[in-house]
């Protein structure tokens, strides 16, 4: 019989205002095996923990239940407290009487009754808890960063600077990501390339960084400290070691009609290409869907002109397998598709563009060499209308419910840049709200309005109608004036919502990292663990976790790097002792459990078993506890109940069921 202590936390008034904590204590003392029960305003506080320590000693507790907040908050706290005081941490159970009780119920009698039942279930479970010892597993001192944008680059640099090896996997031909597509950055209006390129070069030349561009993560197995990752290096058809990046091949390539992804499809590129001039590595790739040689077998011009013989049409995809201790996801974002927003005439009129397209137009390396002109007729626009929140803060399924966060600022930037460079061009911005929290942000916005004469109209645009004369008639509304507005424009720019990169779902599945309804990766805790995924050893960097601007991204990238460094600095990791275990006397050796194990943790061996005097060789399941993550799939597959999960055993769960169903 366990000697169990029950500790009921008031959580200030969070619990005590709704649950009669004294009553819970009183009822706890009636439970079998409960030798001590007390309540305290803050069990998790220093003083609360001292009380627990005293109770453990005084009553020689061999088990304890804390009735408090969610185990996701303080289970670790109380387990450590128990351990410090000589009680195995796995003899501690939490009854969640805050999130699951006091916070959702109003009636005190009802909430108290429920709290008592939750306490009983926890006591019933503790009776069957076994003291468990965490095992150890080695840490592979190498990190993987998925995505080579500013988030990935910064994370990689910080990890590499700390002395650990790190690999970047980027699916595009070059690292650089979205930031490389931007012209200027707010609120300082410095050139994006000027601040990004040095980082790219630094990453490429860092002795601890290996960059795999034109590559994708194919498969992930293992667990924190011991991931095994297959990386698909897509066929580049250009020998990375031989190519000097002279660019002749791109000039000579006869297939020049492919849409230029880097310029958002606003112009074309050759079949063999580097996405932009500062690309790293400065080695082109051949677009197999456009290359005449690869499609028809005839051509071969690039090969002919390549002086170093770097072209290799026979190249195939290659899979390399690497070991990592930690993985950082930095897959970034894309703008949403606008096919559900027909009213803005995007796609109908060439002069309705997204803000990211405007970035390319305004960039000296862009399709118009940096001249602001209409894509339809090349004329300079005299009236430009910006429409905010296209697809952001949207209540229906056409767009996204969240604020994309960056649009207000970049629109102010665009407006300011245009007014500065083309003073005779009028700029009007239709907005719902202008959101400018951030250092020097509101000042920046006010400059756009006050110094640059940008016309901000609070109100939405219902329709953009292309006119026969090539202009665009914007049907808007001014909410402050309460009137309809019809505005003729030469160009309309849509502040299109951003969403996580489409590949993130696939990657999240491979990593068993969870994802929210908007496909943003979920952090382990929204406030306290914002750069960690709930999956141990997987960290989040940049917009894959939620909309953010460059400084925030860089800050998060650094934070993720610190977490990785903290992990890689350890030689051994404690493993979760709540793993599956087979009872050799009941195991049939039928292999069903191995079929459902996602970690390949179950194998079989034939060994001599003494079953109450009957000695025979039996095929028995063996669980590798370093690989087992404790999901329990095997336990239900096992018909005889031979396979059980420590910490969540059949008998423990049944005891909880029994305690709840009286």
């Amino acid at each position, binding site marked *: 019989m366990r000697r169990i202590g029950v500790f009921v936390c008031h959580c200030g008034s969070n619990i005590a205002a709704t649950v009669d904590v004294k009553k819970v204590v009183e009822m706890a003392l009636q439970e079998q095996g409960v030798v001590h029960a007390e309540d305290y305003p803050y069990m998790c506080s220093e003083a609360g923990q001292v009380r627990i320590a005293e109770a453990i000693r005084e009553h020689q507790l061999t088990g304890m239940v804390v009735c408090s907040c969610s185990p996701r908050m303080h289970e670790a706290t109380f387990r450590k407290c128990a351990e410090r005081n000589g009680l195995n941490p796995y003899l501690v159970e939490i009854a969640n009487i805050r999130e699951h009780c006091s916070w959702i119920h109003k009636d005190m009698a009802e909430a108290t009754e429920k709290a008592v039942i939750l306490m009983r279930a926890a006591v019933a479970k503790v009776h069957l808890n076994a003291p468990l010892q965490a095992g150890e597993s080695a840490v592979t001192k190498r990190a993987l960063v998925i995505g080579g944008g500013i988030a990935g680059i910064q994370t990689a640099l910080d990890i590499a600077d700390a002395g650990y090896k790190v690999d970047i996997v980027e699916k595009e031909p070059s690292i650089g990501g979205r930031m490389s597509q931007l012209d200027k950055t707010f609120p300082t209006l410095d050139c994006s390339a000027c601040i990004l390129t040095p980082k790219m070069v630094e990453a490429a030349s860092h002795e601890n960084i290996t960059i795999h561009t034109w590559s994708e993560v194919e498969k992930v197995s293992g667990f924190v400290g011991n991931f095994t990752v297959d990386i698909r290096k897509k066929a580049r058809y250009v020998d990375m070691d031989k190519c000097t990046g002279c660019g002749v091949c791109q000039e000579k390539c006869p297939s020049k009609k492919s849409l230029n992804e880097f310029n958002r499809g606003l112009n074309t590129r050759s079949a063999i290409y580097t996405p932009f001039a500062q690309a790293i590595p400065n080695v082109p790739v051949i677009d197999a869907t456009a290359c005449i040689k690869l499609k028809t077998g005839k051509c071969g011009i690039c090969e002919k002109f390549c002086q170093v013989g770097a072209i290799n049409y026979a190249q195939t995809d290659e899979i390399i397998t690497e070991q990592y201790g930690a993985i950082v996801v930095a897959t970034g974002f894309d703008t949403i598709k606008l096919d559900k927003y027909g009213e803005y005439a995007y796609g109908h009129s060439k002069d309705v563009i997204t803000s990211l397209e405007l970035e390319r137009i305004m960039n000296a390396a862009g399709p118009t060499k940096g001249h602001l002109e209409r894509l339809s007729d090349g004329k300079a626009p005299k009236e430009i209308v910006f429409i905010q929140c296209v697809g952001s803060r949207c209540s229906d399924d056409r767009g996204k419910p969240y604020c994309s966060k960056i649009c207000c600022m970049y629109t102010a930037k665009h407006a300011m840049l245009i007014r500065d460079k083309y003073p005779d061009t009028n700029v009007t911005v239709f907005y719902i709200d202008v959101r400018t929290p951030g250092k020097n942000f509101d000042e920046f916005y006010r400059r756009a309005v006050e110094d640059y004469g940008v016309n901000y109209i609070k109100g939405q645009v219902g329709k953009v109608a292309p006119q026969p004369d090539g202009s665009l008639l914007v049907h808007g509304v001014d909410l402050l004036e309460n009137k309809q507005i019809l505005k003729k424009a030469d160009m309309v720019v849509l502040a299109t919502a951003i969403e996580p990169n489409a590949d993130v779902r696939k990657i999240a599945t491979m990593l068993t990292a969870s994802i929210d309804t908007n496909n943003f990766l979920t952090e382990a805790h929204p406030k306290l663990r914002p750069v960690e995924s709930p999956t141990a050893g997987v960290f989040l960097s940049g917009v894959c976790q939620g909309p953010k601007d460059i400084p925030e991204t860089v800050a998060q990238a650094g934070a993720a790097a610190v977490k990785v460094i903290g992990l890689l600095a350890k030689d051994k990791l404690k493993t979760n002792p709540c793993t599956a275990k087979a009872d050799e006397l*009941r195991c*049939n050796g039928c292999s069903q459990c191995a079929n459902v194990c996602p970690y390949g943790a179950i194998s079989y061996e034939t060994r001599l078993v003494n079953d109450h005097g009957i000695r025979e060789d*039996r095929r028995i399941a063996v669980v590798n506890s370093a690989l087992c993550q404790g999901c329990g799939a095997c336990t239900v*597959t096992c*018909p005889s109940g*031979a396979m*059980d999960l420590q910490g969540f055993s059949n008998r423990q769960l049944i005891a909880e069921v029994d305690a709840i169903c009286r």
Partner: protein
Amino acid sequence: MQELIVRAKELLEKGEVARVLGWKKGEQEYDAEPAFFETAESLDNFVYNGFCGANLSKYMIEAGKKEGKTLVFLKPCDSYSYNQLLREHRVDREKAYIIGVGCKGKLAISKIPFDGILKVSGAQYPDAQEILTVETLYGTETIPYKDAMLERCHVCKGKDHVVYDELLGESADTVDADRFAEVERIEKMSPEEKFAYFQSELSKCIRCNACRNVCPACSCRKCVFDSTAFDSEQKANTTSFEEKMFHIIRAFHVAGRCTDCGECSRVCPQGIPLHLFNRKFIKDINALYGEYQAGSDLECPAPLTSFTTTDAEPGVGRG
């Protein structure tokens, strides 16, 4: 039958097998029992007739622990059970010599509704078209062979063996009913009628475990219902719930593994149509996850240890 004895003696005498697993003559024509024969002489008591319904595949688990090979006679449906055991590593194929025997449908003495049965003519070498003549203490009666046939033979899954070393004897098609008709009939009932039906059937259960112990899929060394470690140990039925629990869980544990051999219904002393549980799962599996016959092959993924990302949601088809 004679050819089986001849072949068995031959293999035994040549030393190719150490023993023979077959059926032994009983006191009556209809009570042949599964038996191991170790000598050629003992095979004189070997019998194979219409009452040899017992599926011998499960005995091969124990036979595999003995020295040498065991010759086993498997009917077509028994061979599915053997294959399933093979897949689950419960039997050793190396230690089995399998003769697939023909089957023309097996009889159930409980389906011959006469008192005081002494002799059943026609059961020796059955033919589904035959009329059985039954001599009883109270006179002579007749019954069509098909009327006395086990339920499973009316919905036989085929007369081809899925595993064997050699084949002996002829088979005859016995199918004359729809395998899922009864399940469908129940499915169409209202919840109240369903409940009343199963309550009435299951209230007869005496928890003798015959269904479990005869079942080749229920081959656990220690059944979860016999073990205290799961806190599920039950012996007798103490309430109507426990019968349900036992039969639901038993059906669940063999779901995707049950070959529908029908032994559970054959042996139930209370005549509970236990196959209706297993067949419900088989029907659901076929409908939801694609046609699947347990025991038909050793490799294809089993329905409950595999999945697709687009599987139906639980409660599918509810109102």
